[in-house]
C-alpha cells in the first residue's frame, strides 16, 4: 500500500481494521521516517527529544496480537502517537525541555498517557518543547530548537513545536500537546496542522508538569480535524486524580467532525472578534483569515463582528497569572529529590546547592518568568498585580459570555504572523509574547479552541491558522466548524495543505 506515513489516523485505523496493514508496519515506517528526517539539535526537524524504538514496536506487536485475537482495545489501537515531553511517562525520560530534569524517568504515567496506553496506541517518543512550555517558538528548549518542516530556518511555533512538527513532517500521525496560552494552536497554525485546546477541565492534567495550573490543558495535535476528534474523545473525560476535571463524559466530537465535513453550516452564528485583528497583523495572515470568514458565509453561517473590549488586556493578564503560578510550580526543582544537582565548591549548604542548580538548570525565559511571578506575588504587590490580573480575568470571561449570547462560535486568526526565522525574537520577550495574542483569551476563560489550516500567506508562502472558539463544554462546535472549513478548503486546494510543503531531505544523524 502507499506510504503509510501520509495516512491520517482515521485511515490507519480503517486499514488496521480491514487487515490491510499491521501496527508493527505502521509503527516501523514512522520510526524510519523519524530516523530519516528528525536529525538532532544541529540539523533536521528535531521534533523528538527521545524516541522509544523498542517500546513502540513492542506495543505495536501487542496491538497486532490483540487484533489477531479479535480484541482490539479501541478504534485507534495500533496507531502510533508522539507525546509532548511535558507529560509524564513511566519508564520513558520526561525532561520538559529543561536541563534541570535531564535524565529524569518518572515512576508514573500521566492520566492521558495511561488512557493512550490502555487504548493500545504505541508511543513513538517524547517531543521537543520550549523549556517547561514557556515560549512560542520551541527555541527555549534546552536541547536545541525544533525546525519548521515548511522552512527549516524557521520556528515551528511553541511551546509544542515538537508535537506540531512531528505530525507536519509525517513522523507521527497523532501527537499530544498542551496549551497554556496557545501552545497547541499556534504551532498548529504555523505548521499547517490541526490543534485543539479543549475546555479547561475537559482533559485530565494529572501528570502534566504544570506551567500555569489554571490555564493548562492537554489536547490533540493532528493533521486533520477528524483525527483530533478521535484523539480528543480518547483522552477526554473525568479524572478523579485531577480536582479541576469536569465530571462529565466526553462525546459527540467525532460525530460533530463528520457532520461538519458535509459542509453545511446553515443556521450557525459566527462572530469575528474585532479586537483580534488590525495593525501589526501580517497582511497575508489577515487575507487568508478574511477568505475563510467568507467561506463560512458560503457554507450557510451568519457572520457578524463582535467586540470583546477587554481582550486587549489579556496578554498583560496572562503574563501576570502565568508567571505567578509557574514561579511556585517550579520551586519543586531544587536538586533534593530528583533531577539535576549542581554542587558548588567548598562545603555548600542545601540552600546553596538549590541556588546553583536552579541557576544552571533553568534557561533565561524560565528565570524571567519565575522572577516576574515572584515579584507579582510578593507582599505589597499582590493586589496590584496578581489580584488585579484575577479580576481582569473575570472581565475577559464576561466578554466571552456576552459574545456567546449572540453567536455560537467566535473566530480569529490563530496567530498574528506566520512562522518567523529562528533567532529573530529569542531575546525579545515581549515580541515573542505577542505571538499568543489571539490564543490567550481562551485559556484565561477556560473555553475551547481549535486551529485549522487556512492556506499560505502570499508574502512568504507559509501556513496560516484559522482559530475557532466555542463556549465551555461546547467543544463539539469546534469540530463541526473546523471540519467544514477543512473540507471546503481541502477541496479548493485539491488536497491537504501539507501537500504543498517541501519534501524533507533525509538528514544524517
Amino acid at each position, binding site marked *: 500500500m502507499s506510504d503509510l506515513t501520509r495516512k491520517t489516523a482515521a485511515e490507519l485505523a480503517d486499514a488496521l481494521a480491514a487487515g490491510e496493514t499491521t501496527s508493527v508496519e505502521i509503527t516501523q515506517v514512522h520510526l524510519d521516517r523519524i530516523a530519516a528526517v528528525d536529525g538532532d539539535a544541529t540539523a533536521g526537524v528535531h521534533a523528538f527529544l527521545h524516541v522509544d524504538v523498542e517500546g513502540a514496536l513492542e506495543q505495536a506487536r501487542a496491538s497486532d496480537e490483540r487484533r489477531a485475537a479479535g480484541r482490539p482495545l479501541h478504534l485507534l489501537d495500533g496507531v502510533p502517537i508522539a507525546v509532548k515531553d511535558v507529560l509524564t511517562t513511566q519508564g520513558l525520560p520526561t525532561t520538559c525541555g529543561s536541563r534541570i530534569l535531564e535524565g529524569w524517568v518518572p515512576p508514573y504515567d500521566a492520566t492521558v498517557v495511561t488512557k493512550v496506553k490502555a487504548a493500545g496506541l504505541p508511543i513513538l517518543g517524547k517531543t521537543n518543547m520550549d523549556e517547561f512550555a514557556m515560549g512560542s517558538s520551541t527555541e527555549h528548549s534546552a536541547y536545541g530548537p525544533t525546525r519548521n518542516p515548511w522552512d527549516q530556518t524557521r520556528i515551528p511555533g511553541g511551546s509544542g513545536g515538537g508535537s506540531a512538527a512531528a505530525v507536519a513532517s509525517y513522523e507521527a500521525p497523532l501527537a499530544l500537546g498542551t496549551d497554556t496560552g496557545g501552545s497547541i494552536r499556534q504551532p498548529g497554525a504555523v505548521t499547517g496542522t490541526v490543534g485543539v485546546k479543549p475546555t479547561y477541565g475537559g482533559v485530565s492534567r494529572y501528570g502534566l508538569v504544570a506551567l500555569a495550573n489554571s490555564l493548562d490543558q492537554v489536547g490533540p495535535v493532528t493533521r486533520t480535524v477528524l483525527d483530533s476528534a478521535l484523539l480528543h474523545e480518547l483522552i477526554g473525560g473525568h479524572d478523579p486524580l485531577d480536582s*479541576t476535571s469536569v465530571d462529565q463524559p466526553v462525546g459527540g466530537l467525532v460525530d460533530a467532525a463528520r457532520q461538519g465535513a458535509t459542509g453545511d453550516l446553515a443556521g450557525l452564528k459566527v462572530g469575528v472578534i474585532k479586537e483580534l485583528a488590525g495593525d501589526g497583523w501580517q497582511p497575508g495572515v489577515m487575507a487568508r483569515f478574511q477568505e475563510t470568514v467568507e467561506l463560512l458565509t458560503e457554507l450557510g453561517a451568519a457572520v457578524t463582528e463582535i467586540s470583546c473590549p477587554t481582550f486587549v488586556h489579556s496578554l498583560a493578564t496572562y503574563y501576570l497569572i502565568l508567571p505567578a*503560578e509557574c514561579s511556585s510550580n517550579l*520551586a519543586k526543582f531544587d536538586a533534593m529529590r530528583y533531577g539535576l544537582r549542581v554542587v558548588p565548591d567548598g562545603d555548600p549548604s542545601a540552600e546553596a546547592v538549590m541556588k546553583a542548580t536552579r541557576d544552571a538548570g533553568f534557561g533565561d525565559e524560565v528565570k524571567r518568568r519565575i522572577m516576574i511571578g515572584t515579584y507579582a506575588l510578593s507582599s505589597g504587590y499582590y493586589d496590584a498585580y496578581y489580584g488585579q490580573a484575577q479580576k481582569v480575568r473575570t472581565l475577559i470571561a464576561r466578554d466571552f459570555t456576552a459574545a456567546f449570547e449572540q453567536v455560537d462560535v467566535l473566530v480569529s486568526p490563530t496567530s498574528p504572523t506566520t512562522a518567523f526565522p529562528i533567532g529573530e525574537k529569542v531575546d525579545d520577550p515581549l515580541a515573542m509574547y505577542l505571538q499568543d495574542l489571539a490564543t490567550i483569551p481562551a485559556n484565561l476563560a477556560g473555553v475551547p479552541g481549535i486551529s485549522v489550516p487556512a492556506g499560505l500567506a502570499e508574502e512568504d508562502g507559509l501556513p496560516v491558522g484559522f482559530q475557532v472558539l466555542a463556549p465551555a463544554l461546547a467543544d463539539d462546535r469546534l469540530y463541526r466548524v473546523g471540519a467544514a472549513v477543512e473540507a471546503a478548503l481541502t477541496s479548493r486546494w485539491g488536497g491537504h495543505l501539507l501537500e504543498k510543503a517541501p519534501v524533507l531531505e533525509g538528514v544524517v544523524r
Partner: protein
Amino acid sequence: MTETLIPFDEVIEKFDPALGLEVHVELNTNTKMFCGCPTEFGAEPNTQVCPTCLGLPGAMPVVNGKAVESAIRIGLAMNCEIAEWCRFARKNYFYPDMPKNFQTSQYDEPIAFEGYLDVDIQTAAGETETYRVEIERAHMEEDTGKSLHVGGSDGRIHGAEYSLVDYNRAGIPLIEIVTKPILGTGDKAPLVAKAYVAALREILLGLGVSDVRMEQGSMRCDVNLSLAPKGSGVLGTRTETKNVNSLRSVERAVRYEMSRHAGVLLGGGAVLQETRHFHEDNGTTSPGRVKSDAEDYRYFPEPDLVPVAPSREWVEELRSTLPEPPAVRRARLQKEWGFSDLEMRDTVGAGALDLVEQTIAAGASPQAARKWWLAELSRRANDMGVDLSAVGVTPEQVAAVQALVDSGKINDKLARQVFDGLVAGEGTPEEIVAARGLEIVSDEGALSAAVDKAIADNPDVADKIRDGKVAAAGALIGAVMKEMRGQADAGRVRELILEKLG
C-alpha cells in the same frame, strides 16, 4: 549569650503579658490530606509516599473529604463559625523537607473562624477561675517530611554534615488552631496557656479526630508572647516559641519568655520579633535563624484545588455528631457521682475521668472507682513513668477487684496484691486471688487462736481495752493481721477482740 531573667513576681508587677497559641494537630485519617498514602506512624522511610506527596512533577492533589469533615467538627467544637466558602492557598518557601517547596495551606479564608474555648485554672487558694480564650481561626494544611541530621555533635541541625529526608509524614493532614491574643491573665498566663492546650487536647480526644500525642508530634504547640508596661493597654513586640511539645513545657516556655522579655525591656533594650526554640532539657529558649524572606510567603489560591463550600445542612449534620463538651460532661458526672469539687478536680487532674467513668459503668461505686484510680493506680503509673491509662489495669478489672472486696473475699490490702498480679499479667482478679492464696481466712478457730495469741503477747494493750479504751484495739488488730499475713477480715478481728476483752 547570657539572658537577664527577671523574677516572675517582678515581671507581674511591671508588665501585662499577652499570650497567643498556635497549635498544630495531625488528624488521624487513614490517608493523607491530598493523596491516598497511609498516615501510620513509624513506617519504614519513604514507604508511604506517592507522586503527589513526594511533589513529583505533574502530580496533583485531591482533598481528603474526611479531613475536611474533621476540620469542621473541630471548628464546631471550638464554637467557631464555619466558612460557607473557602479555599486552599500555597505558602511558598524553600525547605528540603517540603517536597513542593510550598505548603498547601489556607490563608485568608480558613475553614473555621471566630470561636472560643473556656478554660479553668486553679488558683493557689484552690479556687477555680475560668478564662475565655478566643479562637481566631482553624485552618487545614499538610505536614512536612522529617529530616535526620547526620554528623556534627548530637544529631541536631547545627553542625550536621548532611541530612537524610523521609517524606512519609509529608502530606499528613494538619489543622492549625490559632487563638486571638489572650489578655488580662497576669500571673496566670503560664497556667492559662497550659490549661488551654490541655482543654484543646481533651476536646480533640473527645472528637476522636487525632491521637493528640504530643511526644510523637501529632500535637505541636507554638507559643506567642509579648509584654506591655503594666496598664498601658498596648501590645508589645512578640516572640514565637516553637517546639513546645508537652503540657508542662507550655507553662515553662511562657514563664521563661516572660522573664526573658522583662529582662530585655528593663535593661533598656527592645524585644526582637523572632522565632525561638524551646529546650525541653533546661526550660530555656534560644533564637532561630533570622531569614530575610521569612515573612514573604507569596500566598495565592491553590490553582490545582477547587473551593470548599460546606453546605449548611452538612455543617448541622456534623454538629449533631459532636460529643458533649468536656466541661459540660464534667459537671454532669460530678453531680451523678456525688463528688466534691476537690475530688472531681483531682480525678480530672490525674487523667482518670474516663477510667473512673468506665469503672463505674462496670459496676463499681463512684467512690471505690475514684479511690483505686487516684490512690493506688496513680501511684503505680507515676512509679512506672506512664500515663494512667497505660498502667496495665483496665476499668473492668478494677470493678472486678472491688466486687471481690465488697463480697468480703479480700480486703483493701489484699486488693493491692491483686493489682500487683494484674500488672504482672497473672490473669483475672479471681485467678490471682486463687493462685496467690489471697482469700481472707474465715476459719473462726484459726482467727480466735490468733486473737488469743495477740492478747497474750500484749497484756498492757489488753488491759487498756478492758478499761474501756476501745481505740487501743487497733494495735491488737495489727498484730492479728500480721499473724494472719493480712488474710483476715479486720472488722471480724475487731469484733472478736472486743468480745474476748469486753
